[in-house]
């Protein structure tokens, strides 16, 4: 192990020529967190005693699911061990990027804070769609790419094959691809050397007014919001007043410093450096990713480019199973929002499900993670309605509606309906091309193109309506490709489509939770399926219950639950009485778990079963 460098340059007094800002682009499970762990050890910022796996991933869910939701930055000192040994101690700022498609915007801001990226690919699996998408993003940002194959110690590793693949993608020689094992540590020092050698030092104007880009913002219950920034020009100093350029809001810098990897206060952060600031704000929406920070006095006048407000793409109604938990749900959402500028919600009332919230998410994983955190960290039992996208409906009279809840889809004369579309990239072994294309066709996809990455791996690009992939697309894709396919998508706008709202009527009453917007060709199948399913799930009651699926006033499917004719125990003699009273008490308990929809008692289980059925749930689909 190399010696821990002495003479480590301090924050705000570091020569930009010694700085290397880089991130790691990798697919989930390709070993990014393990590599980060090795780097922490090798550079000596975490000693063996304190080391734990996935050191940088703070949240339990992240560690358990192996995904990184929030990024962080770590300052690592490194004196290259190759060459003549005269290079001296450099400062490497490793910026950990979020690893999922839903967080593309956050990824893009992390990339914008770097000059280079380590492209980390599993030597046994090759590149995956999402990694490819982020790689393209890095190339667009003109980052220097350091290609690395990980897990070369695995028996199934094919370093030759995948070196070739990477070389083709980024235009380098296969020999330039580094081969490491983050698990055993092989090749990690060479990788750090390569970062110093290849990644350019940041170039900024030292004496200009300060401009720092926020690439992450994290809520900490003790310290308030911790904001991670990359200083582009000038310098931020402790105790100065700063200004958020998107809103003009000013704050005092209570603390400024760097993570190595624990937060360490400093006098300031200089040009090209990466660090954190604390201003005392309590809500990440006051310190938004992509925003530019400057000094309050004599600050910059022009913000850095690339800032966007996060825009929810997928909506779902979240309802507490027990109506009395509603205030707890509100409180939990409020808390999560402190740390999640992309989470939006507003109260909503459903005739069927009671009081709840319509919640907007960046995508399916985002939805999944939020729901899981609500259930796990806040002990809430929830019913989530099937996820839906946002529709723009233009009426014949020119009025426009934005629909985030299918039950609010307007009635009357509709001229046009617009739905969001995405550009989807699917990577898979070429043997599955047929079944992938078949799947995309049934989801109203349009083929954009197809390229072979290597002899037997192919990249397929489609335009798909987002609504078609928020349901069960990814599960279907996985099962049709025996788990080999990977998917990435990015919103590309909207399209005009023949969409209709299908309502489900129970005993003549519309059940808002089951309303769905579907393509008109799929409406009939949706109606038939839901109606049949409800017939199975709703117990017979004192009267006959028609279940109908309808588009407007036109019924497209119908089933009937026959009236129950017998609900009486034949015998009730002396010995039966206690038993019967106890049975009655049990039945009353059961009745409490029924939701009244009009005059019909619907078991809560029926809602859960219908809303989480394989055909239309978002649950568990996010892992990619």
């Amino acid at each position, binding site marked *: 192990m190399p010696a821990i460098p002495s003479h480590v340059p301090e924050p705000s007094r570091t020569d930009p020529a010694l700085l290397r800002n880089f991130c790691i682009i990798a697919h989930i499970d390709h070993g990014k967190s393990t590599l980060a762990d090795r780097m922490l050890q090798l550079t000596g910022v975490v000693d063996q005693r304190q080391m734990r796996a996935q050191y940088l991933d703070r949240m339990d869910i992240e560690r358990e699911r192996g995904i990184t939701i929030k990024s962080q930055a770590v300052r690592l000192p490194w004196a290259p061990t190759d060459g003549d040994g005269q290079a001296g101690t450099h400062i490497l700022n490793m910026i950990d990027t979020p690893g999922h498609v839903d967080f593309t915007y956050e990824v893009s801001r992390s990339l914008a804070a770097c000059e280079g990226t380590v492209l980390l690919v599993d030597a046994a699996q090759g590149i995956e769609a999402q990694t490819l998408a982020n790689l393209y993003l890095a190339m667009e940002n003109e980052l220097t790419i350091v290609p690395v194959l990980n897990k070369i110690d695995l028996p199934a590793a094919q370093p030759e094959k995948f070196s070739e693949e990477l070389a083709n993608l980024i235009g380098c020689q296969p020999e330039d691809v580094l081969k490491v094992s983050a698990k055993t540590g092989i090749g990690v020092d060479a990788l750090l050397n390569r970062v110093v050698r290849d990644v350019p030092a940041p170039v900024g104007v030292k004496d200009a007014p300060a401009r720092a880009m926020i690439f992450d913002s994290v809520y900490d219950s003790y310290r308030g919001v911790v904001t991670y920034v990359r200083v582009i020009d000038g310098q931020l100093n402790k105790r100065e007043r700063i200004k958020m350029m998107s809103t003009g809001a000013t704050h005092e810098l209570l603390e400024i410093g760097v993570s190595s990897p624990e937060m360490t206060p400093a006098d300031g952060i200089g040009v090209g450096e990466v660090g954190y600031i604390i201003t005392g704000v309590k809500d990440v929406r006051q310190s938004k990713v992509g925003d530019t920070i400057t000094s309050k006095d004599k600050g910059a006048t022009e913000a850095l480019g690339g800032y966007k407000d996060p825009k929810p793409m997928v909506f779902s109604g979240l309802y507490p199973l027990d109506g009395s938990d509603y205030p707890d749900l509100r409180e939990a959402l409020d808390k999560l929002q402190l740390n999640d500028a992309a989470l939006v919600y507003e109260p909503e009332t459903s005739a069927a499900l009671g009081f709840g919230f319509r919640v907007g998410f960046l995508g399916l994983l985002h939805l999944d993670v939020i729901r899981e955190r609500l259930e796990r960290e806040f002990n809430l039992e929830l019913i989530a309605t099937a996820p839906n996208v946002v529709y723009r409906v233009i009426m014949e009279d020119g009025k426009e509606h934005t629909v985030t809840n299918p039950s609010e889809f307007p009635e009357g004369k509709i001229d046009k309906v617009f739905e969001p579309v995405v550009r989807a990239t699917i990577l898979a072994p070429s043997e599955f091309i047929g079944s992938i294309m078949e799947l995309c066709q049934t989801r109203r996809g349009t083929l954009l193109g197809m390229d072979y990455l290597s002899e037997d791996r192919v990249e397929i690009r489609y335009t798909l309506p987002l609504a078609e992939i928020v349901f069960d697309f990814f599960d279907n894709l996985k099962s049709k490709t025996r788990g080999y396919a990977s998917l990435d998508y990015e919103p590309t706008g909207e399209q005009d489509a023949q969409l209709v709202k299908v309502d489900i009527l129970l005993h003549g009453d519309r059940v808002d939770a089951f309303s769905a917007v579907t393509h008109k060709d799929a409406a009939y199948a949706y109606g038939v399926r839901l109606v049949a399913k409800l017939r199975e799930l709703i117990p017979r009651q004192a009267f006959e219950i028609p279940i109908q699926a309808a588009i407007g006033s036109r019924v497209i499917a119908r089933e009937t639950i026959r009236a129950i004719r017998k609900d009486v125990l034949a015998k009730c003699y002396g010995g039966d009485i*206690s038993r019967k009273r106890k049975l009655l008490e049990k039945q009353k308990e059961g009745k409490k778990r029924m939701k009244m929809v009009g005059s019909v008692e619907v078991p809560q289980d029926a809602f859960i079963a219908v809303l989480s059925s394989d055909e239309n749930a978002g649950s568990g689909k996010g892992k990619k």
Partner: protein
Amino acid sequence: MPSALPDGEPVPEDGSLPAPALAGAADRPLGFYLHVPYCATRCGYCDFNTYTATELRGTGGVLASRDNYADTLIDEVRLARKVLGDDSREVRTVFVGGGTPTLLAADDLVRMLGAIRDEFGLAADAEVTTEANPESVDERYLATLREGGFNRISFGMQSAQQHVLKVLDRTHTPGRPEACVAEARAVGFDHVNLDLIYGTPGESDDDWRSSLEAVLGAGPDHVSAYALIVEEGTQLARRIRRGEVPMTDDDVHADRYLIADEVLGAAGYEWYEVSNWATSRAARCLHNELYWRGADWWGAGPGAHSHVGGVRWWNVKHPGAYAGALAAGRSPGAGREVLSEEDRRVERILLELRLREGVPLALLRSAGLVAAGRALGEGLLEAGPYGEGRAVLTLRGRLLADAVVRDLVD
């Protein structure tokens, strides 16, 4: 009685009751149920507390046998006398059930009744019933019972169809129960009941009609008709699970019930409880009415349930354990529950709604009243009695009685 015992608190060794249970006892009728836990064979559908062995050894080596059973049971009647103390009530009803009471000698049954007469006194108009197996009685047996003070007898007929009896494992020959009715009448029984079961796997509507016709031909003054309940743990439940016999659909049960009410009604039998019909008010089973109207009764015998003034208790199930407790001078009670006011209100609703007289609406709370109004609108309650302040089930309502009860107790 079903074989599974409820959970409850323990019964004191001497069987004593909390003082409030006896308050106001004089105003309530008192009955006795005597359980005989023996059968010649166990029927496939039966989950009652009954045993086919003639001798059962209990804890402490006490022998419980058919031969000394009457003496054991008489011990409990004496215990009852002690527990009820200076309660001066005469006994209004006695009902001997099983099992198969008629597996005991007729003299044994008469001796058991004698013990009640000796300890408590029998009311002059007391109703004294025994259940009887059509194959285990003859005219002499019946005459002995009649002379010993029994005045009502109930035969387990179940069906007039051999193939149906076979599924139920009933061993009597078709026609024998009807003959028993005549024999009972001949020796002077005023009141005779036939028990029927409908909805047995393999039974058709016509089979059921023929059973009802056979009953009408025999002319008892009381008929009980029960939907077959397939209880867990019975041979029949296992056969259904294995697919050897089909499960009867609830709608079929409903149809059979309507047939029964139509045929019996047309022949002058009037329903007075969901599963019971009688030719006159006097022909009703007074003992069962004690159960349904919250009166007091002492149930003697293994597994028997009792109720006195809001305390329900039940005996240990096994005849050996039962005999052992009594031999040691202890109460055979296995557990009991003391009902709260609300328990008693709920019980009144769930029991009395099954009766022709129904439940006083005054017993309902506001949510229950709303539910009653709804049930009236849905045709489950009779309009006439409703106007007079009573919830009385219609024919369709009787079939949905449990659902109505669930709403009315709110």
